[in-house]
């Protein structure tokens, strides 16, 4: 994954490679207990327990979805109110202009549409995707990260980061390989 990089050759992280989810989970727990904060794992599928192991929790997506749904509901309803009651009142069989039951389907569909777009755009936006280049792609053998290997990175900007100690700690967790990654 060559490409554009602002800080070519600046050290990015020390990355350890594991063969199974259990091993990487154990290693992530070891790192947390040792006090590391800037730890990130890269895995082919979500490894359950990893969020706790690297001490990470984020509940903003559900709120984005909720706000999206709320926006959709308000927009959907006001669209119908504005067009059917305010701007273009039309007497259809003497029914009230503000016929709420008949406004529910469109309001509902708008709620779902905006909430879903909120979920997708929120997820991609907070994950900063699309992102064609990332230093982690310089890790040796990283192509297997989306297949059958599990990578654990300790970033250099971690307050506890130390070239020798961090590497030694990672090596003690029986990885397949440990590499220093630049990018």
């Amino acid at each position: 994954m060559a490409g554009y990089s602002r800080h070519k050759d600046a050290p990015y992280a020390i990355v350890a490679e594991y063969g199974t989810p259990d091993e990487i989970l154990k290693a992530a727990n070891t790192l947390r207990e040792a006090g590391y904060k800037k730890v990130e794992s890269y895995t082919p599928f979500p490894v359950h327990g990893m969020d706790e192991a690297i001490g990470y929790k984020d509940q903003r997506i559900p709120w984005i979805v909720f706000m999206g749904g709320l926006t959709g509901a308000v927009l959907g309803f006001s669209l119908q109110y504005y067009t059917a009651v305010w701007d273009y009142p039309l007497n259809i069989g003497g029914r009230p202009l503000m016929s709420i039951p008949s406004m529910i389907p469109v309001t509902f569909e708008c709620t779902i549409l905006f909430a879903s777009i909120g979920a997708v755009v929120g997820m991609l936006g907070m994950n900063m995707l699309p992102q064609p280049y990332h230093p982690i792609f310089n890790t040796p053998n990283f192509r297997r990260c989306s297949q059958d290997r599990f990578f654990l990175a300790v970033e250099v900007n971690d307050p506890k980061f130390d070239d020798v100690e961090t590497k030694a700690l990672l090596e003690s967790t029986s990885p397949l390989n440990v590499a220093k990654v630049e990018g």
Partner: protein
Amino acid sequence: MAESKQKLMEFRPLIEGEQTFESIDQKVADLVLHQKGRYPVNLKSPWYIIMGTAIGIFHLLILSVGWLLYQGIGIWGNNVPTAWAFDIINFVWWIGIGHAGTLISAILLLMRQNWRNSINRFAEAMTIFAVMCAGLYPLLHTGRPWVAYWLFPLPNITGMWPNFRSPLMWDVFAVSTYFTVSALFWFVGLIPDFATMRDRAEKMWIRKLFGLLSMGWRGASRHWHRYEQAYLLLAGLSTPLVLSVHTIVSYDFAVSIVPGWNVTVFPPYFVAGAVFAGFAMVLLLAIPVRKWFGWTEIITDKHIDWMTKIMLATGLIVFYGYILEVFYGWYSGTSVELKLLNFRFSGPYAWAYWSLIFCNGIAIQPLWSQKNRRKEGLIWVICLLVSVGMWLERFVIIPMSLMQNYLPSSDKNYYPTVWDFGMFLGTIGMFFMFMFLFLRFLPVINIFEMKDLLYKTQGEKAATAREKKPATAPSGGE
């Protein structure tokens, strides 16, 4: 409890054979990446036979639509009072087929039914293509599809707005939302698999293509965390959406006062019918496809068995709907409803009604026995009958109700023309064309969810045999 569940898993596993993460990649991703040799240009290979036929039939669609745009909808058999006929039958039929995809991907995900993992991508693709076919019909039925944007509430110089008290307007919103959300759900599910494809590809342009599609996905745990939240919420949103879409489709009929349509049972009856038809279509495709692609270990007999059970259950609900329709007609005591019942039972199109009862009511009965649920040929034939039956159901409901009106003087029979059939067949061609393009060029089975499931069921065994040193030489390391 946990132990007995474990035993059940062992008895008939969701993934058969000795599988590893690597073997799943090989089974799914390499089918797309290593095309050479797998798809010889040979008139005997099933992909070319089906694709060729589908493209041929697709041309019938182009022809029918071209002639329609030139001549207007007078080329169809629609008349007054039967203003809704093949166009609306096919719309409802296709939308219904699409619903199984959302049901499998969303509702089964919420219910934590792991067996969905090997069929959900496939079923979601089916949803998208079926909704595309469905959308064509109301679009062309407007007569002037080039001004179809009038359906949307866009400000215009005449100062008019669409009438939101009409179910047809609800339909516009329901179907467009359904298509958008299904496409989003499908694409979000594909992102991590695109990354797998990118990393397994050998040719540069293929890597770049999948790299673009994967948007630089790198499987970071913070990303997975948000990804799973978003995916689960999308499933949660799709579930009421799918129910609402067919409910709203049924409102197109139920809200009117046409005899045979003005029935409160329509929403649940339509939703059950949609799931019924959709599962039939999933099975119709899955049974041959899993053989051709060698996926009998991933889409197992257990999957077929469970899908058949859902089909049987929804089929029985639909049959109950038929009984209620007759009951309501009789119980209403109005002459026009009774006249309609009589018309269905013994009118000129009685054969359609009785074939529908046979296809949707009687033909599914063998599925009660477990032995029959293992006979793939039998299931396939039943699914074909169900697909035909569900089309006939819409024929019985839509034009057959319109032919009989409150005023006997306006009764008129409806006869479809060759263009009606041409366009119907044409959309079938389009559906299969897209479906088989998808089968060949995209990962048809959700790779990362299969790996997750494999790890949950088989644990450490799933990992690739341990190598001391990585295969490629370190480039950025020490």
